[in-house]
């Protein structure tokens, strides 16, 4: 508290008027497009208006500062100043130095309640709120000169603008005062909310815990009391022994009030007008985060430590950073080398949310996995996601863009940390049933890809259920995105499993679900889920090519799980997917299927070899069913692409085998050759162009010309067209020595 004034200095703004004037003009500049130009075009009407506004605002402040006695409500001067303050506040927000004056007036009870309420309601910050103004207003609160309603309004205001207060050291020193307000039944929920925001570890004392427990006994289990208790428990688990529900719907009601909307307007306005404003106005905001998201409505707070002695620190910085025991202020953390040098004395910012935009702090967080850190972030995120969600709270709908950006930031952080946040997961579970599948679509679906691996039972009812409902009733593009994000989810799980296997030695604290069998079950469940919805989706969308592409993309990951991720699990695609791809009209799908079947083969052969050689003691081995399934598919494929006997040889129960008798009845000529590498509908165009190239004189397109040597040349032609999947499949699965090829399936 080196540089702070005594907390109760009503005269301060008067003494510092000079300094204030510069401040004010700086604040005025902010509202302009180009601050530098202000000197030149001083005469423009816009400027004139700003000047006038500034003057009248200054006058208003002076008036409120000097007013001594109770003034009648009808006093025109009072009314005029009030209106000035209100209009400026709503348009541009109030400069930092205004708060002291206005708070003092509003809480001292000089005016009638209506005036006080109006003043409080217009306290919209343009940039920051000085801490001492808040401190002095708290002292007014303790004197008890203002009515209950004004007190309540003040608390609501404090909660709403909490993140705008520049420092919180002194405010935290008043923790006891706030705590004493708990006994007021009306104020209790808001005081709890405020304490929740304010609490630090050193604030948690046995007598406070006792008091809270008493209150709970008296008032019954209230969510706000439980929230506060849970924070206490978080800091000092030994003091709070009662069990609290880990997951709550909503701890606190939104404090409401007019400020939130006004703050947004002011922010949007300022954002539109200047690029530089934020970092200028928040002296302590770290420059890294200024690039993005600072100006959004959902503010991710700038990181600041609880230190007042920044200036001093800065001087000391180069002298003896190593020897000092004090923590390194995060504001000064700008380079990676700084992080490495100071990693022993870093302290997380008081507002955990700020780490999201600070990659260095994320690095730091990654190194020091601490439950309290996770939980602090969890609480903040939970609250924010819930309050700002645009489809759960209809009033937020105009802020969709901001919410989108916020979700985007969270997703990027998840990617950075390579793990999902449990608050995002819970948010997903809670909001998916209410989601329309439209608003913030890509952001929400991306969240799906970071669902942590541990939650097995929840994922079934909370994710698969609502997602399937949305999936079936939505457009084909939505279906594609869902499959895509489920593919990413699978990949993230597999990656997580690989890293987990690597670090098996330090596997403390992993729940039973991350054991290999638990993992295999969850992965299998996911793959089967995708198999089921894919089958249905292909039916609903009549085998849409794009959709099929996304589904096969998913199976490209599935078919390689054994070799690439060392997971003893292989699941074949369901017939609904396999046959849709095999008989598709598009060569891209067919080519992809060929590649997938080739990878399945490689994986299965390796597994078989490992099993036979018994090099490893295998915990799991693939069931014969998998091999049989693969062989059935392979037979069908070879029959369909190579030997032209798809209808005869297919032995899959859901396959396309048909009686010759029946086929004859269709009166299709040459039904026998209608499926091979030449006549397959996906490849026929290739055959056509090949014929044109090989027999330029022959105008009657005769596919039967492609046989024998021509067949081989045609094959080369296909490979040259980029059908690499087909190439690897045919080279691996078709025995080319005898011309009448047959499938070389594994010995089961």
């Amino acid at each position: 508290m080196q540089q702070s004034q005594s907390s109760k200095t009503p005269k301060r703004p008067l003494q510092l008027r000079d300094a204030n004037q510069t401040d004010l003009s700086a604040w005025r500049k902010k509202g302009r497009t180009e601050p530098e130009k202000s000197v030149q075009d001083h005469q423009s009407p816009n400027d004139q208006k700003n000047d006038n506004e500034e003057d009248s605002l200054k006058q208003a402040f002076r008036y409120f500062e000097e007013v001594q006695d109770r003034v009648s409500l009808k006093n025109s001067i009072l009314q005029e100043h009030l209106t000035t303050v209100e209009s400026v506040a709503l348009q541009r927000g109030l400069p930092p130095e205004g708060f002291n004056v206005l708070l003092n007036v509003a809480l001292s009870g000089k005016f009638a309640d209506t005036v006080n309420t109006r003043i409080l309601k217009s306290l919209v910050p343009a940039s920051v709120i000085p801490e001492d103004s808040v401190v002095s207003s708290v002292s007014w609160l303790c004197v008890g000169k203002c009515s209950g309603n004004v007190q309540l309004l003040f608390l609501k205001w404090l909660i709403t603008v909490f993140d705008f207060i520049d420092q919180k050291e002194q405010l935290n020193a008043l923790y006891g005062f706030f705590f004493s307000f708990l006994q007021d039944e009306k104020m209790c929920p808001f005081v709890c909310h405020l304490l929740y925001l304010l609490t630090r570890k050193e604030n948690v004392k046995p007598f406070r815990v006792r008091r809270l427990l008493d209150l709970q006994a008296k008032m019954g289990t209230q969510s706000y009391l439980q929230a506060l208790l849970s924070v206490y428990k978080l800091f000092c688990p030994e003091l709070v022994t009662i069990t609290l529900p880990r997951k709550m719907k909503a701890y606190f009601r939104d404090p409401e009030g007019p400020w939130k909307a006004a703050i947004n307007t002011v922010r949007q306005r300022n954002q539109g007008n200047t690029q530089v404003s934020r970092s200028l106005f928040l002296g302590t905001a770290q420059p890294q985060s200024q690039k993005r998201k600072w100006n959004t409505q959902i503010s991710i707070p700038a990181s600041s430590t609880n230190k007042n002695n920044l200036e001093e620190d800065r001087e000391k910085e180069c002298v003896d950073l190593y020897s000092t025991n004090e923590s390194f202020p995060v504001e000064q953390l700008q380079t990676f080398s700084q992080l490495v040098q100071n990693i022993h004395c870093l302290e997380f910012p008081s507002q955990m949310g700020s780490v999201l935009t600070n990659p260095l702090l994320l690095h730091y967080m990654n190194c020091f996995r601490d439950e309290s850190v996770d939980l602090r972030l969890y609480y903040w995120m939970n609250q924010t996601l819930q309050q700002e969600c645009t489809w759960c709270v209809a009033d937020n709908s105009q802020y969709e863009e901001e919410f989108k950006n916020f979700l985007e930031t969270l997703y990027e952080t998840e990617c950075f940390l390579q793990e999902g946040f449990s608050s995002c997961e819970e948010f997903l579970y809670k909001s998916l049933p209410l989601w329309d599948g439209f608003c913030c679509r890509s952001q929400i679906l991306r969240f799906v890809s970071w669902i942590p691996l541990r939650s097995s039972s929840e994922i079934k009812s909370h994710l698969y259920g609502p997602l399937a409902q949305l999936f079936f009733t939505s457009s084909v593009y939505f279906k594609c995105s869902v499959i895509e994000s489920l593919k990413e989810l699978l990949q993230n799980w597999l990656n997580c499993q690989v890293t987990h296997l690597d670090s098996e030695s330090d596997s403390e604290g992993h729940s039973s679900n991350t054991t290999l069998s638990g993992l295999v079950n969850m992965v299998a469940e996911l793959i089967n889920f995708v198999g089921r919805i894919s089958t249905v989706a292909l039916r609903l969308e009549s085998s849409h090519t794009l959709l099929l592409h996304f589904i096969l993309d998913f199976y490209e990951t599935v078919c390689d799980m054994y070799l690439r991720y060392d997971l003893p699990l292989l699941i074949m695609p369901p017939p609904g997917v396999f046959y849709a791809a095999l008989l598709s009209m598009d060569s891209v799908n067919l080519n992809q299927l060929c590649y997938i079947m080739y990878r399945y083969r490689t994986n299965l052969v390796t597994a078989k070899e490992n099993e036979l050689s018994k090099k490893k003691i295998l915990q799991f081995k693939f069931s014969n069913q998998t091999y049989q399934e693969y062989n059935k598919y392979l037979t069908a494929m070879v029959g369909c692409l190579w030997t032209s006997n798809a209808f005869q040889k297919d032995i899959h129960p859901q396959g396309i085998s048909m009686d010759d008798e029946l086929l004859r009845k269709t009166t299709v000529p040459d039904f026998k050759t209608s499926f091979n590498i030449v006549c397959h509908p996906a490849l026929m165009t290739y055959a056509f162009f090949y014929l044109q190239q090989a027999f330029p004189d022959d105008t009657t397109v005769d596919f039967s010309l492609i046989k024998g040597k021509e067949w081989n040349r045609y094959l080369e032609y296909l490979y040259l067209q980029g059908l690499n999947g087909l190439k690897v499949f045919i080279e691996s699965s078709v025995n080319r020595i005898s011309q009448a090829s047959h499938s070389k399936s594994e010995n089961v």
Partner: protein
Amino acid sequence: MAVLRPFNKLPELNSAVLLLVGSEGDFPQKLAETILQEKRDFTVNIHIATSLPLPSERDHLRPRIDMIVFMIDIKNKHSLKNVEDSLAHVDARFFLGKVCFLVTGVGRVNCCSVDMNAVWKLGENYCSPVLFCELELEGTRVSTAQRLLRMLQICAGYVPGVSALYFNTLMTSFS
């Protein structure tokens, strides 16, 4: 007190009929308008009723109804009761995939005055999917309209190989 039956009339060529049952101000009307604005390749006919039974005197003029959507406003306690009463006038065969519950007003969970468990239970008891939406929001209304239209298309039999019953089973079996 006529019971609404799904199969006692012949379907019309290339058209589907949707019945919206709901008493929440002009929301059914708005939703119907949004549905009609959507692109589709069959004629859509929408009937709106505040409650069932439908008046019997004009019954012979009414086309066959392919799907019924019961709208429940969570801000209005009465709306759930209204729907529950109306359900008595629906033939059991409608519940083989041709009924859907649309819960509206989820954007204002704070003003919720309907027991959500009761809503879930309703869907379970009548083997019908429960969709949630906020009709106040333009975007959500459009996407809800699209979803309902897709379901209507299936209920009217315009998606080859997918019957209403099959689709209904899918919608309810994953949760």
